[in-house]
Each structure stands twice: as structure tokens, then as C-alpha cells.
């Protein structure tokens, strides 16, 4: 049984069909990357899995349970955590308060303030600082830490490297490496294809709201992903 399954999911922004009849499944402990051009529907898809966006059709299942109608705040308690695009920290609150807010769902698990600090050592000296005063890398680490504090079984990472200096991105992915091997199921949206091919076990490429390519990173060539990314025909597979 897959940890997360999306069946025939459609999402609209008003008249725009952002996601059209998308289906895929993610196994427990798998790291799956969603790639695609801006506007392909990746963020909308992640937000729908987290419950922030009502689907127009289709279903979302977590460990075989249909959660399509479950509101966002209860999905966190069931084990889904989203690190939203743009981090969305509570800027007037301290790093520690932001992290503690991640615990509101009350889901049991191994994550504590100290463990987040150990995973992201750059946060430790900034513990009492207001989130609004942090650097981009520190903000992103706080946002991921906040999601981890809810002890998720499925972690959704939306463009965590967006707007960060290359060195900050390296540092972030170093910190995430242990997490990715720890058995947490991860779905990430990432623009940097080289990094995707290194960290993910499977890649899903979206184009105009549809999945146009899906394959293991070990057996899918970078060129095929690039072609699918730009909609260059040959790679098209039945979605």
C-alpha cells in the first residue's frame, strides 16, 4: 500500500484548470520530486494534498484512507506537513515559537526543539530571534523545522531553495540528507534538475496541469526530463 496516493485529481483556480486528472502514488519512505515549468500546477497540487485547496474532482488517500474531505488542520494530525512556498513564517514570533507552533496538532513522534536545532545547527544561536529578522537560509530551516515538529509521515517541500544563495541551498540539502534516508516519505518541488536527479528516487514532470513523464531517477535521462519539462513531444506518456 502506498503512503500517499492521488487519483484523477483536478484543481481549478477560477476558470483556470491548474491541475487536470492527475494520478500518482508515493511509497512509504520514497523521495519523489515534482518538476515542471512555472504554472505547471506543482504548487497547487502540493497545497491540495495539504488541504489548502479544494479539488474540483478526484481523491487523495493517505495510507489507504480517503482524506479528500478532511480540512487542512486535521490532515496535519494525520501526518501530512507542508513547507509552503515562500516559507510563510510568523514574522512577529521567535524561531522557537514558530517551531513550537508546529506541535499544535499533538501528533506523537521523535521531533523536539533540540532535535530540530541539531538538524539545522545554524538555528541554534537564533532561537530567540524574531523570524522576520532571519536570513533566507535560516527562515527556510525554521519553516522545515516547523513542519517536522508535527512529526509528519509525509513531508511536502515546496521550492525550499527558492531565493537562497547556492551555499545556503547546499547547507539545507546537507541537513535534509539524513531526513531523506530516515524513512520519511517526501514529495518535493524543486527547480534545480541536477539536485533533483541526485536526491530523489523518482521524478514526476508536469506540464500545463498534466503529468507528462514519470520515472526512476536512476533510469531516466536528464535529457528526457528536460524535453518533458519544455513539452518537446517525444517523452509524452499516457497520464
Amino acid at each position: 500500500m502506498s503512503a500517499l496516493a492521488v487519483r484523477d485529481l483536478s484543481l481549478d483556480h477560477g476558470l483556470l484548470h491548474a491541475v487536470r486528472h492527475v494520478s500518482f502514488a508515493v511509497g512509504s519512505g520514497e523521495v519523489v520530486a515534482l518538476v515542471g515549468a512555472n504554472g505547471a500546477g506543482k504548487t497547487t497540487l502540493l497545497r491540495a494534498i495539504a488541504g489548502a485547496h479544494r479539488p474540483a474532482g478526484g481523491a487523495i488517500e493517505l495510507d489507504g484512507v480517503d482524506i479528500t474531505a478532511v480540512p487542512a488542520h486535521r490532515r496535519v494530525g494525520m501526518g501530512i506537513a507542508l513547507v509552503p512556498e515562500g516559507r510563510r513564517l510568523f514574522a512577529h514570533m521567535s524561531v522557537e515559537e514558530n517551531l513550537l507552533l508546529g506541535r499544535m496538532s499533538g501528533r506523537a513522534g521523535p521531533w523536539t526543539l533540540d532535535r530540530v536545532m541539531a538538524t539545522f545547527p545554524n538555528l541554534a544561536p537564533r532561537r530567540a530571534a524574531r523570524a522576520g529578522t532571519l536570513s533566507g537560509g535560516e527562515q527556510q530551516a525554521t519553516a522545515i523545522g516547523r513542519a517536522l515538529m508535527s512529526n509528519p509521515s509525509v513531508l511536502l517541500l515546496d521550492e525550499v531553495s527558492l531565493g537562497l544563495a547556492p551555499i545556503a541551498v547546499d547547507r539545507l540539502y546537507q541537513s535534509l540528507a539524513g531526513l531523506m534516508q530516515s524513512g520519511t516519505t517526501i514529495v518535493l518541488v524543486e527547480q534545480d534538475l541536477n539536485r533533483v536527479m541526485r536526491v530523489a528516487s523518482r521524478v514526476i514532470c508536469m506540464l500545463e496541469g498534466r503529468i507528462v513523464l514519470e520515472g526512476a531517477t536512476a533510469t531516466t535521462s536528464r535529457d528526457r526530463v528536460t524535453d518533458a519539462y519544455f513539452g518537446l513531444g517525444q517523452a509524452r506518456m499516457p497520464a
Partner: protein
Amino acid sequence: MINTIIQGILLGGYYALIASGLTFMFSVMRIINLAHGSLAVLAAYALLVLAQSWHINPFLGLLIVLPAMAVLGFLLERLVLERSLRAGQLVPILATFGLAIVIDNLLFEGFGANTRSLGNFIGSLSYDSIELPGGIFVGVLAVGTFAAAVLVLVGLQLFLSFTPFGRAIRATSEDPDTAGLIGIDARLVNGVAAAIALVTVGIAGAALGMRGTFDAYTGGAQLLFAFEAAVIGGVGSVWGTLLGGIVLAVAQSIGAAISPLAFLIAGHGTFLVVLFARLWLAGGIGNLLARRA
């Protein structure tokens, strides 16, 4: 003169007490509740009914009235504020304005135009006093009201700063969508915040009824005093609210010492001076004029 100022400071405690719920609701829910004063009068009438019909001391009556106010706050949020907020920022102001009119007139319908007081039901407390050095007498009730205001304001601040639910309230007021994504039920949080605000309204209503008299239309003036205290002190800060209440009341007391007619004028004048000073400091007047031109 010193006596006037001391009495003014103590009256300021009452204004801070009634302003606390107004600023709490505004700072965490972004809603200005124009039914605030009328709800305080409603609580005073509830205590009066308990005292008259069941001989329940108003202090004991609070044990019944405060939970009832909390329930009322939760329902107010669910049935009125949440729905009206969906239609735009200004709609809750209109809705609570309407609610104030409904409450005032229902109270008038039920209790008539007679002026009432809870003073008769609290023994000698309504006129007990303490002598301070220098021959100045202060009312026990006034001191108690001041202490209640400090307790409520500090309590609210500690609750918001150091409890998980307080954190959830602050997070929800900053970004309700993201709060939902990290597992906070924004509707529940807002309901509880409104319930807390109305508990402070209940306490203020008790103070109103015990320290003086009230009738069905007393709510409007209470709202005005609370609003002025909140604006003078700066919305959303504990000591600011207390200071705002004190500044308003001292101005009124000094005004009344000069001429009995100047009590309200001095208060309103101080409010306007502070308001324009704030706008001027924030560059608001310059912006307004620039926009006109």
C-alpha cells in the same frame, strides 16, 4: 489636586478594564466590536436579575455570568462575526453596530427606563473607603476595579505570550491560512478568542453595575470610553491600554474639578488631541492632504 488625580487614576482602571476586551478582540481578530458596551450592560443586567430574583451576591453571580458570556462570545463569533467578515472588513462593524441597537432595545423592552445599580447587593462595599496618608480617601471598590484591570490585562498578555493556545491565537491573527497548514483550527481559535474577550466584558459589566448606575442605553457611553482609552493608549499593548484609560480618566477628573460640565469635554478633547498627534507623527495628515490635492 492630588486627590483629583488619584481618583482619576482609579477611574482609569475601570476604563482600562472595559477597553481590554475591545483591544484584545481588535488585535487578535481585527474586529472592532461596536456591541462591546451594550454587552457589558447586558452582563450587568444578568447580575442584577440573579441578585434580585435568586438573591445571589453579584460576586458569586459572576461564576454563572462569566461562563455564559464566554458561550455568548463563541456564538457571536460563529453566527455573526465569522459570517460578516467573509463579506469584507467593514461588515462586522456594521453587524455589531446593529447588534448593539438590538441589545439596547431588548434591555429597554425587558427592564424599562429605570436606572439600576448592583450597589444595593454588595453590602457596604459600595461606599467603603481606605484613608491614604494626607487625608485622601479612596473607594475600596475603585481600588478593586483597578486591580481587576491590571490582573485582566497582565493575564491576557501572559496567556498570549506563554501558552500554546495563546501562540495559536497570535499565529492565526497573523496568517490564518498558514495556521491551518500547521494544524491549527482557525475557526476554533477565533471562537475561543471571542469567548475570552466577552469574559472580560462580563467583568467590566460587573464593575459598571457595582460602582454606579446603569440603564438600557448606558452601553454607548461605555463603548466610547473604551474606544477612547484604546486609541489613546495604542491598540494591542497591555500597559498602553492601562495608560490610555488613566490618561482619559485623569483628563475627565481634572475637567470636572474645573467645571462639572467639563467632565466629558475634557475627555473627548484629550482623545482628539492624542488622535491627531498620532496621525501627525505617522504622517497621516500629510498623506490625507496630499491625497486630496
